[in-house]
């Protein structure tokens, strides 16, 4: 417990707070009594688990939490989509969350929900949008599927190869967005935080101006700090593009936009979907990289990222912010988040439900 920051509350107030924060809605009197009794008996996590059984834990709390990850504006005011459905389904089914960027998993809405919803389509979000509009119970009616069997992508990479990710992060541009938002959403770091001028620029692609505004110092002092690392990783997405409303995967064929805009002919030309982590050494080694640091394709990159310590800490931090309504700033709070991250990636086997339950009881008041 965080005695220095906890609100003053008895077990009934704690149960009330816990339920509202986890399920977004107040408990029924019966549920409140059950949760209160568990808290009194010293089983606060049991009380949290009861609150997480409420359908609104998925239908409101988690849904709006994850929606922010699915668009460049990072707003929850977007329609329900396949990215969110996949995260919700993985959490509900206790799929180890370190697979979120590498699993060949996908979730669709059951036809048995009772609502009239559009059939799933590779190039449309109507299926998911209809489900949300009709208030479908996502706890009950999300069905797990093999992602590759639906979208035909052989290099499926969890949420990063969903249609929604395609629309948000692969459309136009040079696919750098998907790398950036993957870091922001799952490692809690934008590229500015990884800026490292000590790295070689050999992997910076040709479309990066080496003398912005006519001044090469700008490239050397600024641009290279991010591009050296991100361009080396971004090769993983060289076979992807968002075309005609769907994410296309062209194995063996680098999409044109990756090597377009030749501003510096001696720059890196991406020949395949290989990637390497140049941030593994130096200042960014603090992210706690583990295992192989180079490979091919989106799936292997996703697996490498979620193996890192930074992933566990990021998830722990995000959950703390979700259920505790504040950032972990004090040494005590930071220490708590670190210990929860350790539990998450060891004993917890990356169970997001366990992480949420364990975190929520730390700030329900005392």
């Amino acid at each position, binding site marked *: 417990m965080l005695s220095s920051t906890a609100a*003053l509350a008895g077990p*009934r107030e704690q149960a009330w707070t816990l339920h509202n924060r986890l399920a977004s*809605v107040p408990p029924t009197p019966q549920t409140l009594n059950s949760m209160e009794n568990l808290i009194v008996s010293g089983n606060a996590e049991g009380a949290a688990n009861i609150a997480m059984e409420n359908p609104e834990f998925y239908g409101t709390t988690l849904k*709006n939490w994850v929606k922010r990850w699915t668009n460049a504006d990072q707003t929850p005011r977007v329609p329900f989509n396949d990215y969110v459905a996949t995260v919700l389904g993985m959490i509900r089914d206790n799929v180890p969350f370190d697979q979120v960027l590498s699993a060949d998993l996908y979730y669709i809405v059951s036809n048995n929900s009772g609502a009239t919803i559009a059939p799933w389509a590779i190039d449309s979000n109507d299926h998911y949008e209809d489900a949300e509009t009709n208030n479908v119970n996502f706890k009950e009616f999300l069905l797990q599927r093999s992602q590759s069997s639906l979208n035909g992508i052989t290099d499926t990479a969890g949420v990063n190869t969903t249609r929604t990710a395609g629309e948000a992060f692969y459309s136009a541009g040079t696919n750098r967005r998907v790398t950036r938002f993957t870091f922001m959403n799952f490692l809690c770091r934008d590229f500015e935080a990884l800026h490292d001028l000590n790295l070689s620029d050999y992997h910076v692609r040709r479309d990066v101006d080496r003398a912005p505004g006519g001044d090469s110092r700008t490239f050397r002092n600024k641009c290279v700090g991010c591009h050296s690392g991100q361009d080396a990783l971004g090769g993983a997405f060289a076979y992807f593009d968002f075309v005609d409303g769907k994410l296309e995967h062209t194995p063996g064929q680098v999409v044109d936009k990756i090597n377009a805009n030749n501003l510096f002919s001696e720059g890196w030309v991406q020949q395949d979907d290989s990637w390497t982590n140049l941030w593994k050494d130096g200042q960014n080694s603090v992210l706690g990289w583990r295992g192989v640091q180079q490979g091919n394709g989106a799936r292997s990159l996703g697996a490498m990222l979620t193996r890192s310590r930074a992933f566990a800490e990021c998830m722990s931090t995000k959950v703390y912010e979700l259920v505790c309504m504040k*950032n972990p700033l004090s040494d005590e*709070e930071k220490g708590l988040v670190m210990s929860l991250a350790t539990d998450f990636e060891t004993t917890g086997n990356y169970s997001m439900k366990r992480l949420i339950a364990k975190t929520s009881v730390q700030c329900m008041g005392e």
Partner: protein
Amino acid sequence: MTRVHRITVTFMMLLTVLFTYNNCVLEQKTNKKIKRSDDVNLNTTSTTGTDGTNTSTDGSNTTTDGSNTSTDGSNGTTTSTDGTNGTTSATDGTNGTNGGTVDVKALSVQAFSQTTHLLTKAHCVNCHGNFQQPLHAVADPTQAHDALIDTNKINFSDIPNSRIVQKLRVNMHQCWSDCASNATEMEQSIVNWKVIRDQLISGATSGSTGTNGDTGPNGAQPEYGIKSYEQINKTMSVLTGVRIDRSNIQNIYEDVLTQLPTDNTIDTFLAAHQVGVTKLAAEYCDTLVNDTTLRANVWPGFNFGATATNAFNSTGTQNFIVQTLNAFWGQGVDMSGRAPASIELQALVNELKVGENLGASSTTRKIAKGVCITALASLNVTLL
């Protein structure tokens, strides 16, 4: 709808009283927990050395580059500056009790992320979040913060004359609705930025005077959040039993959707948000009180067909209020806070009787809706 709105307008003043009460209670609770000094001047930042010396300065007459710190090495007092750049060291120099280090810029970024950054991300991102300098709408709060501070777009000493405000008010630059309103909104966000920043600095520096110097700035963080738009809608549905897919509920929800809070950050909760909450509560209560089945669940035994004189006599009023608060604020939850609320609601009932036909049962339902709206729109319902 017309009837509901009339009721809403009638009760707005009293709602404000209750809202203020809730805010005061919240503030008191927060103050208790963060142990913040009551006499902190939000326009100043100060650090008290362990010898008790206290030096305060305001942001207008101190250095602004953030790089320097004016440390009184003899008594361990450190004065922070405008809090926008650099790091202020709150270290006791000579007396041996180790204070911590306060990263003023980090606190300013934190405050910015809860205030002005929300506005720029919402309305400026298409250009200033992408290619157009200054990049004050990019997702990274530090970068966006620096983009404004480093280019002097913010004047904390004269906020209305801040360049980013003037761009809206004078230049009518890319307003998202009415330029004057947008400028005021931007101006208010900067005021909030400054207030929150100073609170954070105050909390951090006062925390740094402890014996181990490791007390961080968390003390100034609220312990509560506010429910977001969908959470509020579903909460009201659960509490009243009125389904969210009823057409009248859907219509009013669509109307106020963008007026309701987007996220759970209570620091950014404004009166305009509360008005949206109240409008939604009014629709739920109108439906609830007119539905004989649903209202019997919330107020069992209450005779909605009786005259107001009989239904809202002394006992009836008290019972109605108790049932309302039990239904909406949780049975047996935070009972210590019920007494003042009950007094306010009784006063509300008395106010609502004035000038009304107390011999009519329609008046009974009007008063019931008034109490219902007040309790349902309160922070006890929307607080997380």
